[in-house]
C-alpha cells in the first residue's frame, strides 16, 4: 500500500516549490515529483526592449542570485555585440562574484539549511562549557563558542522561547530522530546561526562597495562597469579588503568547522549519505582571476567517474516540456526554445495529512504536466549542477586550487570520496566552494591593484547598429551552478532571450524518456522516519539550495502569442 506525501510550501528557499513523494509500506520513497508553482512571464516582458536594459530586467529573476543574472544579461549582450570589457571591469565583476559566493553560501547553510541539521530546542539543554571544549575539536580558533558567548546565546533563545510565541521557529520538526548533533553541537551551530545574521550584512556590503547595493547591484553596463570612482579610491579598496578578511574569518573559523562536525556526526545517518541520484555533473569555468585562469573549471563528469573529464559542447544543451506547463514538448536548443504556457492544474486525490491520516487534497497530475520548470538535458542526459558539480569537475580537471581544498577536506573529515556524492557531500561542497573564494579571492584583488597602476579604463565603447542582427550568450558558473543566457537582437531591440539556470537543471520534472532530474532522483530510496514530519525530504531538497523563481522558464524565442490566456479586463477587480 503506497502513500503520498505533499510538502508545499517548501520554505527557506527562494520561490515557490512543491515536492510530492510516494512511499511504500516501509516508508521508503519510491517515487518523487518536483514542481514550481509560480510563473512570472518575464520572457515576454524583455522582448522589444533596449538590449542595454536586459541585464537590469534579467537581474530581477532573482534577488538571491542577485548578481548572477545581472552579469549574465550584460555579458550575453556584450557577447552578441562582440565587445570585450576592460580588464578592470572584468576584475571588479570577479570581486563582486566572490562577494556573492561569500555571502550566499553561508546564508544558505545557516539561515536556509542549518535548521535541517541543528535542533534549536536541543541546544537549550546543552552545557556551554562542554560545548566550548567540543568546538576546539574542529578548529584551532573557533568563533563565538566561548562558554560565556554560548551561555549568552542560550539565555537569549531561552528567554525568547519562554515568551511563548516561537515566531519563525514555531511548528518545525524539533526532536526529529534524524537530528544527529548532541545538545552541545547544536548550541555551537545555533551560536553561528546568530553570528551569521551579522556576518551576512558585512558580506552584502562587500558587493555594495563596487555595486551600489545588494540585493540588485547597479554598476554594470554593457561594455564594463560604472563605479570607476570607487575602483580608483584606495579607501574603498581597503573597505573591500577588510570586509573580505572579516567574512573569510567566519568561513574558516565557523562555517568550515561546522561542516566538518556535520560530516563526522551525520555520516551515520542513512538519509543524508544515500547516493546523489543523478550521476552526471556539469560545471562551466567562472571567476576569471586576471591571468587567463579561472577559479572554477569547465567540463562534464559522467557516472561518478572523476578519472575522465568531457568537454562541454554548447550545441548539445536542450530543454523539453513534456511534463511542464507549456505547449511544445520536444527538446529544443535554447536559441530555438518555445514557451507557450498551458496550465493544466492539479487533480483531486489523497495524501498523508497532519495527523498521519489520509486526507483529500490536490495532487500533481504526474502523468501529464506538473511544473512551470522545464527539463534541461545535455546530450539527452540529466545533469546535476551546483557546488558538488564544481568540486567534482574541478577534481577531474585537476584544478590545483579546488584539488587542494577538496583533498584537505577529505583528510580532515576522514570521508571517502564516494561519500561526497550525497546530500551531505552537496552541503559540504558548498562550503568548499565558499572556501575557494575565501582562500583565493585575494588573487583577484591583487590582480586589480596591479592593473590599476597602469590602467584606469572601466568601459569599452560600442555601437548597436539597428540594421544588423546579433546573437550571443553567456555561459558560466554561479553559486547554484551552471548558468547560461542566450540573446538575439534585431532592429536594435531584443528579439528573443533565453535563460537556462542552475535550479532548472536540478529541479526540473522528468523528461519524455522518464529520466528524473536531480531533485527527484535524489529523493528515491530515502526512508522517512515520520510521515507527518518529512525532515529528510526538506534536508535533501535544501542541499541543492533551491532558487525557484530563477528556474521558471524564461523566454519565448519565437515571439508566440499567448492568446488563449488573454485576460478579459472586465472580469478583473480593479
Amino acid at each position, binding site marked *: 500500500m503506497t502513500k503520498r506525501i505533499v510538502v508545499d510550501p517548501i520554505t527557506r528557499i527562494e520561490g515557490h516549490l512543491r515536492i510530492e513523494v510516494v512511499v511504500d509500506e516501509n516508508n521508503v520513497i519510491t517515487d518523487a515529483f518536483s514542481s514550481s508553482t509560480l510563473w512570472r512571464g518575464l520572457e515576454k516582458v524583455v522582448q522589444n526592449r533596449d538590449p542595454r536594459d536586459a541585464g537590469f530586467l534579467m537581474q530581477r529573476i532573482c534577488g538571491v542570485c542577485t548578481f548572477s543574472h545581472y552579469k549574465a544579461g550584460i555579458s550575453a549582450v556584450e557577447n552578441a555585440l562582440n565587445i570585450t570589457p576592460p580588464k578592470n571591469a572584468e576584475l571588479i565583476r570577479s570581486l563582486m562574484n566572490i562577494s556573492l559566493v561569500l555571502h550566499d553560501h553561508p546564508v544558505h547553510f545557516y539561515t536556509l539549511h542549518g535548521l535541517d541539521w541543528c535542533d534549536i530546542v536541543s541546544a537549550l539543554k546543552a552545557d556551554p562549557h562542554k560545548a566550548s571544549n567540543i568546538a576546539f575539536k574542529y578548529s584551532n580558533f573557533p568563533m563565538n563558542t566561548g562558554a560565556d558567548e554560548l551561555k549568552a546565546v542560550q539565555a537569549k533563545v531561552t528567554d525568547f522561547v519562554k515568551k511563548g510565541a516561537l515566531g519563525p521557529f514555531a511548528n518545525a520538526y524539533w526532536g526529529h530522530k534524524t537530528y544527529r548533533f548532541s545538545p552541545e553541537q547544536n548550541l555551537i551551530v545555533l551560536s553561528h546561526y546568530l553570528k551569521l545574521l551579522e556576518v551576512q550584512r558585512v558580506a552584502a556590503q562587500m558587493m555594495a562597495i563596487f555595486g551600489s547595493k545588494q540585493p540588485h547591484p547597479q554598476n554594470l553596463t554593457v561594455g564594463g562597469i560604472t563605479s570607476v570612482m570607487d575602483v580608483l579610491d584606495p579607501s574603498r579598496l581597503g573597505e573591500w579588503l577588510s570586509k573580505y578578511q572579516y567574512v573569510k574569518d567566519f568561513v574558516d573559523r565557523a562555517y568550515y568547522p561546522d561542516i566538518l562536525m556535520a560530516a563526522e556526526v551525520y555520516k551515520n545517518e542513512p538519509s543524508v549519505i544515500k547516493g546523489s541520484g543523478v550521476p552526471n555533473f556539469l560545471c562551466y569555468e567562472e571567476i576569471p582571476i586576471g591571468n587567463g585562469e579561472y577559479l572554477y573549471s569547465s567540463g562534464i563528469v559522467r557516472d561518478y567517474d572523476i578519472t575522465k573529464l568531457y568537454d562541454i559542447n554548447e550545441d548539445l544543451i536542450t530543454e523539453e516540456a513534456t511534463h511542464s506547463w507549456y505547449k511544445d514538448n520536444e527538446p529544443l536548443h535554447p536559441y530555438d526554445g518555445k514557451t507557450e504556457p498551458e496550465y493544466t492544474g492539479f487533480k483531486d486525490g489523497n495524501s498523508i495529512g497532519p495527523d498521519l491520516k489520509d486526507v483529500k487534497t490536490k495532487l500533481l497530475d504526474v502523468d501529464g504536466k506538473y511544473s512551470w520548470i522545464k527539463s534541461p538535458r545535455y546530450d539527452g542526459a540529466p545533469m546535476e549542477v551546483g557546488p558538488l558539480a564544481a568540486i567534482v569537475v574541478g577534481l577531474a580537471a585537476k584544478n590545483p586550487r579546488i584539488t587542494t581544498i577538496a583533498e584537505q577536506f577529505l583528510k580532515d573529515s576522514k570521508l571517502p570520496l564516494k561519500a561526497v556524492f550525497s546530500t551531505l557531500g552537496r552541503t559540504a561542497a558548498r562550503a568548499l566552494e565558499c572556501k575557494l573564494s575565501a582562500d583565493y579571492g585575494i588573487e583577484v584583488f591583487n590582480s586589480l591593484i596591479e592593473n590599476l597602476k597602469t590602467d584606469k579604463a572601466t568601459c569599452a565603447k560600442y555601437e548597436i547598429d539597428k540594421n544588423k542582427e546579433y546573437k550571443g550568450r553567456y555561459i558560466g558558473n554561479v553559486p547554484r551552478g551552471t548558468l547560461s543566457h542566450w540573446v538575439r537582437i534585431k532592429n536594435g531591440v531584443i528579439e528573443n532571450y533565453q535563460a537556462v539556470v542552475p535550479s532548472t537543471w536540478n529541479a526540473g520534472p522528468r523528461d519524455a524518456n522518464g529520466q528524473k532530474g536531480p531533485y527527484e532522483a535524489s529523493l528515491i530510496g530515502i526512508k522517512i522516519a515520520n510521515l507527518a514530519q518529512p525532515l529528510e525530504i526538506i534536508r535533501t531538497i535544501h542541499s541543492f539550495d533551491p532558487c525557484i523563481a530563477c528556474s521558471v522558464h524564461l523566454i519565448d524565442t519565437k515571439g508566440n502569442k499567448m492568446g488563449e*490566456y488573454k485576460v478579459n479586463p472586465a472580469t478583473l477587480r480593479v
Partner: protein
Amino acid sequence: MFNEDNQSYSNTLKRLDELEKMPVQVNKEGDIREILENNGISRRDFMKWAAAMTATLALPSSFIPLTARAAELAGRIPIVWLHMAECTGCSESLLRSSTPSIDSIIFDYISLEYHETVMAASGWQAEENLHSAIKDYKGKYILMVEGGIPSGESEFYLTIGAEGTTGAKSAREAAEGAMAIFAIGTCSSFGGVQAADPNPTNAMPLSKITNKPVINVPGCPPSEKNIVGSLLHFILFKTLPALDAYNRPTWAYGLRIHDLCERRGHFDAGEFVQHFGDEGAQNGYCLYKVGCKGPYTFNNCSRLGFNDHTSWPVKAGHGCIGCSEPNFWDTMRPFEEPLANRLYSTKFDGLGADKTADTIGVVLLSATAIGIAAHAAISSMIKNKE
C-alpha cells in the same frame, strides 16, 4: 504624598490604557493568565505574584491590579509576511538591516509568524502557522506582502500549499484581519517587473487585490531602512505614517533622489558624464545624460543609501533607474538614455503620458522633465561660455 501617589496611579493607568490599545500580541496560546492556568498557576497565585512584584517595586498596594495588567500586555507585534510573484530581493533587503539588526527585530520587536524565507516549518506545518496567526491575532497583526499578484482569470500562475490555493486568495484572506498592511517593494506596490508590458500573468499590486488600505513601500528592492523604518514608525509612534499620492510614506518618499543627490552640484554647474567610463565619470559628474531618473524618482536613496550607508546607484556611477515609481519598467526605459532623448521608441512613446496622463504624478514628472532638460541645456551653455 497621597496626591502624588494618586497622580502616578492615574499616569500609570493612562499608559496601560495606551498600551492596551497598542497593537501588541498577547500570546499565541491565549493571554498570559490562560497560560499560567494551563501550567497549574491559578488567578489567585498570579495576583499573589503581582502583589509581590508591586511590593518589590515599592509601589502602594493599589497598584497590584496594574502590575498584573502590565505583565499581561507584554509581547511583540505579530507579523505575517507573504511571498507572491517575486524574486525574494525584498526579504533579502530586510535581512541586511543593521539598526536594528534582523536578529533583534525577530527577537525583540516582532513575532515573525509567517515568512517563507526564514521560518523553520515547512509544508502543512507552515500553512498551519499562517492560518493560526490570521485567526489568533485577528485585527492585531501586521501584514507585509512581497511580490506582484497574478489576478483575475490568471490567478493560477501562482499557487501555494497542498490545496493549491492561489496567491491572490491567500493575500486577500491575510489582508482581511490585518491591523495594518504594507506592500513591500515595487512588485506588491505597483505590480513590478512581471506587470511590465505586456504583463503576461496579469500581475497586480496588492492594493488592487484587497479593498483594505495598503501602505506602499516601493523600491526594487526598497532599502533595508525603508522596510524596517516603516515597521518602526508603527512600533514607536503607534500610528500610520503620512502618505503621498501613491500611498508611500512621506518620511521616506517625500523628496526626489535629485533633491539631495551628491552629484547635484555638477548638475547645477552643467557638468555631465557623456558616456560611462569617460573623464566626467572619473570626476563624479552628473549622470543625467546617461539616463539618470533621479529627477523623476521619489525616494531617500541619496540621503540614506543602501547596506548600512555603504553606497547607492548614483554613488556607484550609474544613474537611478526610477525603481520606486509606478510602472518604471515601462515609463523610465531605456535606463541609460535621458527620458527626453529616447533612441528607441516605446509602445507608449514620449513620456508615457498618453498612458497615464490622468495621474497627477506623471503630469508633474513631465513638467519636471521639461524643466530638467531646460536647466541642463542652460547650465551646459553657461559652462561653454566660460
